[in-house]
C-alpha cells in the first residue's frame, strides 16, 4: 500500500509537468494548425536559460524562472515571424518540414554552444525530502508541481477570461470569420505561438534543475508532449492537462507493477488504443464537420 501511495505522489509530480508540456503544443496546433516540432527544443532552451542565469551569471533561482519564460516567449515569437508567417497558407507538409529543419538546426546550435556533456543547476531547496508517513517527496519537485499548476491556471484564465483569449478562441473556431469581425489574425498567431513556446520553455526551466540539462533532452519530452496531445484531443487544453496526468499514471504504474523495462512504452500503448478506439482523443467534444 505504501508503495502504491508513493507511486501516486510520483504521478502527481510528473503529471503536472507533462500537462504543462502538453498544453503549449496543443494550443499551437489547435489555433494555428501547425505541428510544432520545435517544441522539444524550446523545452531545452528554457532549461539552458536556467543554467545560464543561475550557474553562469550567479543570479537567483526564482528570478531565473520568469527570465526563461520570457526568453521562450521571445524565441517563439521570432520563430513565428521569420518562419511561419511567410509560410501562411502553404500546406501542412511544407510547414512541418520547415519546423523539422528548425528543430535540427536549433538542437545542433545548442550542441555547438554548450557541448554534449550534461549540465546541472543548483537549487535553493533542501536536500532532505518532505516525509509524510510512508511517502516522501523532494521540496524541489513540490515546487515544480506548484509552479506548473500556477502556469496552467494562468493559461486557462488567459484563454477563457481575457479579450486576447476570446480572439484566440474565435480564430480557433473560424479564422476567416474572426478576421471579418476585426480580429487581427496575424497578431493572434504570433501571440499563440509565443505563449505555447513560453510554456515549453517554462517546463524545461522547471525540469532542468530536477534532472540534467543536455542538447537532446527535449526529444523525449517532445515525444511525450505529442502523446499527451493525442490523448487529450488536438487543440483541447483541458484534455491535455488530464492527458498529462494519465500518461504519468500509466508510466508509474506500468514501471511499478508490470515491468520497468517498458516504462516509456506504457504511454504509447495507451495512445495506440486511443487512436484505434477514439481517434479524436479521450475528451473530444462533438465537432462540426465541414
Amino acid at each position: 500500500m505504501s508503495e502504491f501511495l508513493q507511486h501516486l505522489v510520483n504521478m502527481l509530480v510528473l503529471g503536472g509537468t507533462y500537462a504543462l508540456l502538453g498544453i503549449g503544443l496543443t494550443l499551437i496546433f489547435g489555433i494555428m494548425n501547425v505541428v510544432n516540432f520545435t517544441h522539444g527544443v524550446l523545452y531545452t532552451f528554457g532549461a539552458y536559460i536556467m543554467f545560464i542565469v543561475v550557474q553562469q551569471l550567479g543570479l537567483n533561482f526564482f528570478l531565473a524562472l520568469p527570465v526563461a519564460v520570457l526568453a521562450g516567449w521571445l524565441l517563439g515569437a521570432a520563430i513565428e515571424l521569420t518562419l511561419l508567417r511567410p509560410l501562411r497558407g502553404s500546406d501542412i507538409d511544407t510547414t512541418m518540414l520547415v519546423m523539422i529543419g528548425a528543430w535540427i538546426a536549433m538542437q545542433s546550435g545548442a550542441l555547438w554552444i554548450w557541448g554534449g556533456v550534461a549540465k546541472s543547476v543548483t537549487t535553493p531547496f533542501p536536500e532532505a525530502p518532505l516525509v509524510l508517513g510512508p511517502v516522501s517527496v523532494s521540496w524541489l519537485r513540490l515546487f515544480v508541481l506548484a509552479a506548473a499548476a500556477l502556469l496552467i491556471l494562468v493559461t486557462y484564465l488567459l484563454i477563457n477570461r481575457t479579450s486576447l483569449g476570446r480572439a484566440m478562441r474565435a480564430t480557433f473556431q473560424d479564422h476567416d470569420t474572426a478576421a471579418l469581425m476585426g480580429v487581427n489574425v496575424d497578431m493572434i498567431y504570433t501571440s499563440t505561438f509565443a505563449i505555447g513556446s513560453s510554456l515549453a520553455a517554462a517546463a524545461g526551466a522547471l525540469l532542468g534543475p530536477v534532472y540534467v540539462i543536455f542538447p537532446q533532452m527535449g526529444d523525449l519530452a517532445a515525444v511525450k508532449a505529442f502523446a499527451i496531445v493525442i490523448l487529450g484531443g488536438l487543440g483541447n487544453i483541458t484534455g491535455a492537462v488530464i492527458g498529462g496526468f494519465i500518461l504519468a499514471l500509466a508510466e508509474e504504474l506500468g514501471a511499478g507493477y508490470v515491468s520497468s523495462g517498458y516504462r516509456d512504452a506504457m504511454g504509447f500503448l495507451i495512445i495506440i488504443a486511443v487512436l484505434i478506439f477514439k481517434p479524436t482523443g479521450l475528451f473530444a467534444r462533438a465537432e462540426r464537420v465541414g
Partner: protein
Amino acid sequence: MTRALGLVRTIALTTALVGGAAGAQTIKIGVNEPLTGAFAASGTYVVNGAKIAADEINAKGGVLGKKIELVIEDNKSNPTEAAAVAEKLITSDKVPVLMGAWGSSLTLAVMPKLMEYETPMVVETSSSGKITTTGNPFIFRISPPSAVEAAAFKGIVDKLALKKVDFLVINNDWGRGTAEDFSKMMKEKGIAIGLVETMDQGAQDMSAQLSKIKSSDSETVIVTTAVDQLTLIFKQAAALGLKKRIITTGGSQNPDQIIAQAGAAANGTMHLTTFLPWFPDKTPNPEATNYFITEWKKRGFEFAGCTESFRGYDGIRTVAAAIEKAGKAEPAAIKAAFWDINIKGLNGDIVFRKSGPEGKESGQSQPNVYLIEINDGKVGMKTL
C-alpha cells in the same frame, strides 16, 4: 579578376597538396566514442584521456618515426551510429586500427564491421561478457568483463553480510550482463536475489523503479549505469527516503562527481572501480599514474573524470605499442602484434590472453578491480 581567381585556385590547390602530404606522414587511429547523447560525459572524458596519450607519444617522437593522429568521431550513444562511424573511419579515413566504442551495445554493434573490413579494435570500457566470447578475433579488450568484476566482488560479500539484493541496471547489454553475472555469483554465495529493475539509457526519472525497490525486503541495491544517470538515481533515492546500501559497478561512476552532485546522499555508498586516482601510490604503475593525473589537471579537466579518462589514455598507448611492434601501420600486422605486447597500464599490465571459441579468439587483458567507499564526502578504499 580572372588572374586573381587563378591565383586563389593555385594557392588552394597547393595547400590541399601540402596538407595531403602532411596527412600521409601521420599514422591514423580511429576513435569511436559517444560525445553526445546519454553517455556524452563519459565518452568525452575517454577522448580527452586519449589525447593526452597521443600528445605524450608524439612528444617522444611518435611511432615508427611518424606522428600519430586521432580521428575522433561521435557515435551519439547510439549503436546504429556506432556501426556507421566505424565504417566511415575504416573506409573513408583509412584508419588501420580503432579504439571504441565505450558502451557494450555500441561495441557489439561495431563488431560485425571489424569482421567485414578485417580491422582490429581496442575496447577500452565495455564490460559485457558477450564481446570477448562470441568469436571476434579483431577485439582486444583492456576493460574488465562484468564476470571479472563479479569475481573480484565475491571476496567481500561475506564481510558485507549481504542477505538479499535488488538490482537497478541500465536496459542494455552492459546492465543486463552485469545483473546476470552478479546474480550468478551471489546465488553461489547463498545470497537471495530480489528485484531486477531496468531503466532506459536516456531515462531521467527513475522514481517509479526506486519506489518499488524502497518497498522491497532486500537491504542492498546493486546499480549499474554511467555517471549522469547515477547522480540522478542518488538524488531521487534520497528524495524518496530510500535507505538501502547502494553498490555501483561498471567503472563509469566518477565518484567525485557523485559526491559533488548528490551530496550527503552519496555517503555510505560503495563503488567497484577500475582505477585509483585518489591513491596513485597504490596503483600498479604509480609513476605513470602521477604523470597522467598531473597532465589531466594541467589541461583544466575535472578530477572526477580521471576514473573514466584513464581508459582512453591506456587504450591509445596499447594501440601505439601494437603499431610499433607490427613495424607497419596495417590492420593485419597490428592485429597480430596485439598478441605480443606487454605494456604497463595505469591499472595493471596490459597483456592479451585468448578468450572465446578456439580459432577465432578475442584478446582480453586482466585489469584490476577495486572497491571504494564514500564516507563524509571522501573516497576511501575497501580491501577486497
